[in-house]
């Protein structure tokens, strides 16, 4: 219809209505559309429109969105006393797109098939937590199935864990907990047309997820699903687009683009500069926070980083303002002094063991270096990726290089091709001494944020290792175990915060910043919900009418 150039145009009638087509403009195609292969924390994205899971995240703005709520199950799970057995009951009246009922066996099958090597890609927790799952090869090779999962009846499912895990409800948000009807499983081909349990079904999937068309699933009942709003009738996902083009299209908002959103493209610094100068555009920007930290990692096995003084000196010398600028400026990055993201759900406890101020404290750094025997300065090599992601990329590395110069530290840059970079930093043997890294939350809690990085038992000698500081400290390990037992998530969060502070003093990492996501959406898009769980615009909530 005729475009109303009034700024209030989109806000005039802000109550969302059903109907219309939502366009999604993405850069990455949905080439993995199999629930077994996705590594998402419940997903605010396209898959969550098709896949329902036992639990899901609360679809609300900000911090409220970082909570777990029931989805297919009637509650978020009932633990036994030490949180090693979790029981779920399915809601009544759950159906697939073809009208067949969803059973607990289907959920079990869904979890099992995620163990098949053909369908690899998911997060490691199921394998680590479920009893006897370590060598399970999936239902294709191993017909017996996983004994750790019991389905006493069609609506009940029980999980047996090998250790207490109070955060199991968070895990149950992952797409591996999606029901997959065994009779419809086509193995690696399943992703072309996964059977929907959610509000939409796939009616078209071209070029391996490049162009998807989703339509209302008539067998989905809103009554069983209070989380997903599902306003539009149809969702048209176009991917493989250049990110600057996506933002251009969203800002132009012509034709179908006026009802468009993106689930994977942020505003870059340049685009932000342009958008902030334009009031109308600025009103169409959603801001999101995601549990994510960009940091410098040290390998204390490599000289001179074996010396805590050197690590501390570097911590003091960091100029976070120029790093933040390199990452896109204060609107796109918040300086970080803690490893845990600054969100309550993570148990954020502010601390700054080596206060560098905004622009670094080179004097203090020099002093420490002198104490460590490097009076005449120091030359170190900083390893980074060459992928232009503004996180571990050359831009950040050069900003650090410039800042450390003031403290008498000469930084040589070693930029590696991204695969090479990952191979190196995640290999115990080849790990460089000083490199850029980042870590994101699998769910909004301190557990999956701290354990892989600092739990000594998670050091992987012959595979991908994330404990880059090679920290194996009994007190840390024990505290992790103790917190995992807690099923009171608020209490657990507090303990994670305290643990973070304790580890922070060891100067094994230098937190740099937490990214902030800014996303543009089309002029006719309504009901913008951005939770702190993923920081992205929730596609299940938007309306175009």
């Amino acid at each position: 219809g005729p475009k109303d150039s009034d700024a209030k145009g989109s806000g005039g009638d802000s109550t969302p209505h059903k109907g219309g087509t939502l366009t999604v403009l993405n850069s990455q195609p949905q080439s993995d559309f199999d629930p077994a292969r996705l590594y998402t924390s419940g997903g605010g994205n396209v898959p969550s429109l098709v896949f329902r899971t036992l639990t899901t995240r609360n679809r609300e703005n900000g911090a409220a969105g970082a909570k777990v709520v029931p989805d297919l199950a009637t509650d978020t799970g009932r633990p036994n006393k030490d949180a090693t057995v979790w029981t779920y009951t399915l809601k009544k009246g759950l159906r697939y797109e073809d009208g067949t009922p969803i059973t607990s066996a289907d959920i079990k099958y869904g979890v099992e098939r995620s163990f098949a090597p053909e369908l690899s890609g998911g997060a490691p927790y199921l394998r680590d937590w479920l009893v006897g799952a370590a060598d399970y090869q999936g239902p294709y090779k191993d017909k017996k199935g996983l004994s750790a999962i019991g389905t006493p009846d069609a609506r009940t499912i029980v999980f047996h864990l090998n250790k207490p895990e109070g955060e199991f409800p968070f895990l149950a948000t992952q797409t591996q907990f999606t029901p997959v009807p065994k009779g419809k499983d086509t193995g690696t081909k399943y992703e072309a047309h996964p059977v929907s349990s959610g509000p939409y079904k796939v009616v078209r999937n071209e070029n391996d997820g490049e162009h998807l068309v989703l339509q209302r699933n008539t067998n989905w009942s809103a009554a069983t699903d209070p989380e997903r709003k599902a306003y539009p009738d149809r969702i048209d996902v176009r991917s493989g687009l250049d990110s600057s083009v996506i933002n251009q299209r969203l800002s132009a908002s012509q034709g179908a683009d006026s009802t468009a959103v993106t689930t994977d493209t942020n505003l870059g610094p340049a685009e932000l500069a342009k958008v902030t100068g334009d009031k109308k555009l600025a009103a169409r920007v959603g801001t999101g926070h995601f549990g994510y930290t960009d940091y410098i990692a040290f390998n204390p096995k490599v000289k001179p980083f074996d010396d805590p003084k050197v690590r501390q000196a570097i911590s003091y010398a960091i100029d976070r303002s120029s790093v933040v600028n390199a990452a896109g400026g204060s609107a796109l990055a918040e300086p970080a002094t803690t490893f845990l993201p600054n969100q309550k759900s993570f148990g954020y406890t502010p601390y700054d063991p080596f206060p560098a101020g905004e622009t670094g404290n080179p004097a203090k750094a020099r002093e420490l270096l002198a104490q460590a025997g490097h009076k005449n300065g120091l030359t170190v090599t900083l390893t980074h990726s060459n992928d232009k992601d503004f996180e571990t990329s050359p831009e950040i590395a050069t900003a650090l290089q410039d800042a450390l110069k003031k403290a008498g530290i000469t930084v040589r840059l070693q930029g590696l091709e991204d695969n090479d970079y990952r191979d190196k930093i995640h290999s115990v043997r080849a790990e460089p001494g000083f490199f850029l890294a980042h870590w994101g939350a699998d769910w909004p809690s301190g557990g999956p944020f701290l354990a892989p990085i600092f739990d000594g038992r998670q050091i992987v000698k012959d595979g991908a290792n994330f404990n880059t500081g090679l920290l194996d400290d009994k007190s840390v390990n024990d505290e992790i175990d103790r917190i995992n037992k807690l099923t009171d998530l608020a209490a657990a969060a507090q303990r994670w915060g305290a643990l973070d502070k304790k580890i922070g003093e060891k100067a094994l990492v230098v937190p740099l910043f937490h990214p902030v996501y800014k996303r543009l959406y089309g002029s006719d898009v309504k009901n913008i919900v951005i939770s702190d769980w993923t920081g992205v615009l929730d596609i299940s909530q938007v309306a175009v009418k």
Partner: protein
Amino acid sequence: MSEALAAVGAAGTDTSVPAAPGAHQFWRRLRAQRAALVAAAVVALLVLVALAAPLLTALEGQDPTTYHPSLIDSARGGVPIGSFGGVGADHWLGVEPQTGRDMFARLVYGARVSLGVSLGATVVQVALGVAVGVASGLGNRWVDAVLSRVTDIFVSLPLMVMALALLAIVPSGFPRPVLVAVIIALVSGWSTTAKMVRAQTLTLKNLDYVAASRLSGWSIGRTAVRELLPGLAAPVITYAALLIPQNISAEAALSFLGVGVKPPTPSWGQMLTSADVWYQAAPQYLLLPALALFVTVFAMTVLGDGVRVALDPRAASRLRVGTGRKREARAETAAPGPAPDAVPAPAPKEEERA
């Protein structure tokens, strides 16, 4: 080609040194073209700027790597504060968004890498392309088939694949700019040159003068150098000038694979690639390297054209250059007929208009 290079190499040196007569006349013909001279001056200036980069930045009082966070607006993605990207007495061409590094310094330092790598790569591409093209044009069916297939293979290999391979094989201590030039040269450009040269060679080799040269006892190789190269010079020089911008962007592409020059060393290609999204918010960030590149390419093209014309002895009369052989004779010819000045001289058009 060889003449051209000899003459270019002699640029600035005393031309009274007894040079080969060919080179000498080449020089005269080149000097007769004003556009080419201007272009040569621009190219020389660019090279000079690249060489004198430390001096120029010292004059400005800046360097290409220091961050100036106070000069950018962090809240707005890091756009430079002030007009035209923060142009002022301290920063002649303003500063870079997000970092506040000095644009002028980055531009002149960038010239070093970009000109060095692209010219180096161009030389290799042209040498390789001409060698392979001539060889397959002149060689027998087998030589031609083998060389053509090899060329096909290289055209088909994507830059990424080759870059990755070399990255894995070449030790990291290897000088980067050289590596970059070699990769660029190997993966792109030379094959096109080779194809073109082969096509030209096939045409030229049927001409009697090539036959005559072979009858002189020259080997095929020498025949190629003496008789074919001058005739190939026109398309090759023209194409070489065009390879320069391609090589500059190839360098930029490689730096993202980790094979390019290492940051924070600037290069025009890198500046261009990171600046494309900025052209609405900070246009000068994109325009400056783009302009630098354009001026380079334009100058190189005009110069290349000048060299091409100068290499053609038939152009001498069109350019109205004396052959220089009997300059003194000119005075004597005034005797019979109307004085030369009174003769309606043809308009100084370069072309013959029918």
